[in-house]
């Protein structure tokens, strides 16, 4: 499914990366992973929920894009209809990998050669004639750098939420305009009642870790669910019209 290689100016000299958006480019996903430093941008467009990694059972934060697998309600043909696109989407097909065993090794930029954005003849070049990174690649590297710092900052976020029992299961029972129903399962949100009972010292420690603002951003983001339902309802109408 994916084939990761550390980016190399010799080996990957000819590679190109397709830009823009579209289902064929791998953008038809129900959610995108996110991290606390990004919550402020995310909550302006998407609901932020938490779900579990099927391999480890561990929680991670996600920006919700649709109501079922492979459904991205922000994707309109080749357009992403939102003011902000999650960094984990923007960075495709690049990723950060460790350069070796152990946590001390510096991260290196890698590429998923099996990603649909990777091409031999179409899209942006990665290197210029002098084997230097292209402007396009430089921007992606800057994004990955920001992403890396965000993930590091957020690495203790979930444990902190669990420690203070700030996550709770959430079940959405949604009825769309066309009468169809959808139950969104396997998602968790901030436990608001517990949040409002937190005492001074806990609030202070959350604030110092830079986690207090993201917690409230996640709470605020739930009002984006209404927009998501509207998008789904419009989808029905346009499909019926089409």
């Amino acid at each position, binding site marked *: 499914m994916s084939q990761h290689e550390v980016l190399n100016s010799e080996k990957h000299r000819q590679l190109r990366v397709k830009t823009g958006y579209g289902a064929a480019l791998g953008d038809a996903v129900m959610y995108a992973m996110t991290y606390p430093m990004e919550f402020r941008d995310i909550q302006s467009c998407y609901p932020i929920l938490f779900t*579990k990694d099927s*391999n*480890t*059972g561990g*929680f991670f934060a996600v920006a919700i894009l649709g109501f079922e697998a492979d459904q991205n309600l922000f994707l309109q043909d080749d357009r992403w209809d939102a003011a902000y696109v999650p960094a984990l989407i923007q960075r495709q097909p690049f990723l950060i990998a460790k350069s070796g065993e152990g946590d001390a090794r510096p991260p290196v930029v890698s590429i998923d050669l099996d990603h649909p954005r990777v091409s031999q003849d179409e899209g942006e070049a990665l290197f210029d004639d002098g084997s230097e990174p292209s402007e396009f690649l430089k921007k992606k590297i800057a994004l990955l750098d920001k992403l890396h710092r965000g993930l590091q900052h957020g690495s203790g976020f979930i444990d902190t939420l*669990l420690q203070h029992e700030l996550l*709770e*299961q959430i079940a959405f029972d949604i009825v769309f305009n066309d009468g169809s129903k959808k139950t969104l399962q396997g998602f968790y949100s901030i436990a608001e009642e517990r949040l409002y009972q937190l005492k001074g010292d806990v609030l202070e420690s959350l604030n110092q870790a830079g986690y207090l603002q993201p917690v409230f951003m996640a709470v605020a983001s739930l009002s984006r669910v209404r927009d998501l339902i509207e998008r789904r309802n419009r989808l029905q109408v346009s499909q019926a019209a089409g």
Partner: protein
Amino acid sequence: MGYYSHMEDRISRIVVVGGGSAGWLSAGVIAAEHRVDPEARQPFELLLIESPDVPTIGVGEGTWPSMRSTLQRIGLSETDFLRECDASFKQGTFFRNWHTGNGDTYSHPFTVPTDYADTNLAPHWLALADAPPFADAVTPQTALFADCLAPKQITTPEYAFVVNYAYHLDAGKFVELLRQHCTGKLGVKHIEANVSQVNAAGNGDIRSVTTDRAGEISGDLFIDCTGTKSLLLGEHFEIPFQSQQAYLFNDTALAAQVPYTEDDQAIQSCTHSTAQTAGWIWDIGLPTRRGTGHVYSSAHISEDEATGQLLAYIKEVAGDKAAASIAPRKIRYQPGHRREFWHRNCVAIGMSSGFIEPLEASALVMVELAAGMIADQLPPTRDVMDIVAERYNRKFLRHWQQIIEFLKLHYVLSARDDSPYWQDNRAASSIPEKLSEQLLLWRYRSPWHQDAEAVDDLFPIPSYQYILYGMGFRTEPRHTGSRRQELHQRHAAELFRKNAARAAQLQQALPGNRDLLNKVREFGFQKL
């Protein structure tokens, strides 16, 4: 009675005599419900006296699903429990050679038949031509047995399930974990000493026990967890022991730990029970080893022969090399129980109250029920204790009676004719009267809700269905038919179909036991 005398009457100190899983589990359940730590609102103490010289017997490696709520109740994390106790998931029991002895098999899973509350599938299953085995037809759980699949996923919260489950565990490690938790978290006081004398109060209660290195220890309620010795209830109060060997012949066990042949060998999803000529062999899979043992009737087979059968079994499942290194440990026991269990201010829990063969792993669940009832109904004063005691005795006599009848059912239904043991097991004189009546009734209608005696029956009616129809018992169809027969049949056919689909779906979705246990070791379960 005046205010002050009432205060003196208050139950404020419980003394558990004896460690082992019975002692520590009881202490844990009671201490979780009644704060005994120094910050508690009322002065209330829970002491456990454990002999530093007597090793625990270490039987009882199989549990019931009730153990999940018991562990949760005492505040243990499931991840810690699984990691510390070398525990694995148990989804029921798989029986081999019990019916004909010619390689026959059947299952007793922990999941009740699908739609059991509203539909009795047994008569519909009996009417099927080419029916799959009963358990396979009515629950998806048995489909997981063959591939050694787990009852849940790593994303399932702790103690929650996809299909109902209990545990197999290392009893020695379990005691160790409970001891740490009870003393470290729950405020139970641990006294390492041997009890040398039981001292009576003027009214006939136990006033105190004298120990060899901790002096005299007084208490308001004594819990006797001294094992078969039954030091307080049996020796001090002389409450008679009632043998049940007339019904259940087995009185000896040979236990042996068996290594896996490969490190990553699959871990069985259920207890395996394989009938022999004069008993049966248990086989349970833990992450690091298997626990096996032969339970038999010493009147029907010699120890040498019983050992030979156990070694032959081990050779079959684990190879010659494993069998060569085995030195079985022998445990003699008298099947039966005390005439009463709570006498004056003393209640016996665990083997001090009685013991029966582990055919349906009833030992630990009885400890959980006993400790639970004491925790829930703890008499606040001495003058109400006798009322609680009487209720307790009635309830637990009923539990013992049901255990004996239900275990006997496994033997009565056997068609094996290859040894006097199986023939003797079907002699009318060896069958409890109530069981004979039930069997007669069930020839004409299958057991369902109307056969449940009490809401807290130890063995629910689905268990009877699994044993009866697993062992080839036939219930005749009703002669009179029903006006809505066709409707019922259509509904039943739909349930059978859905069950098969669910089984196939679960086989795809659930990981292997070992895979999941490895993940628990690495990541742990989430609490939500």
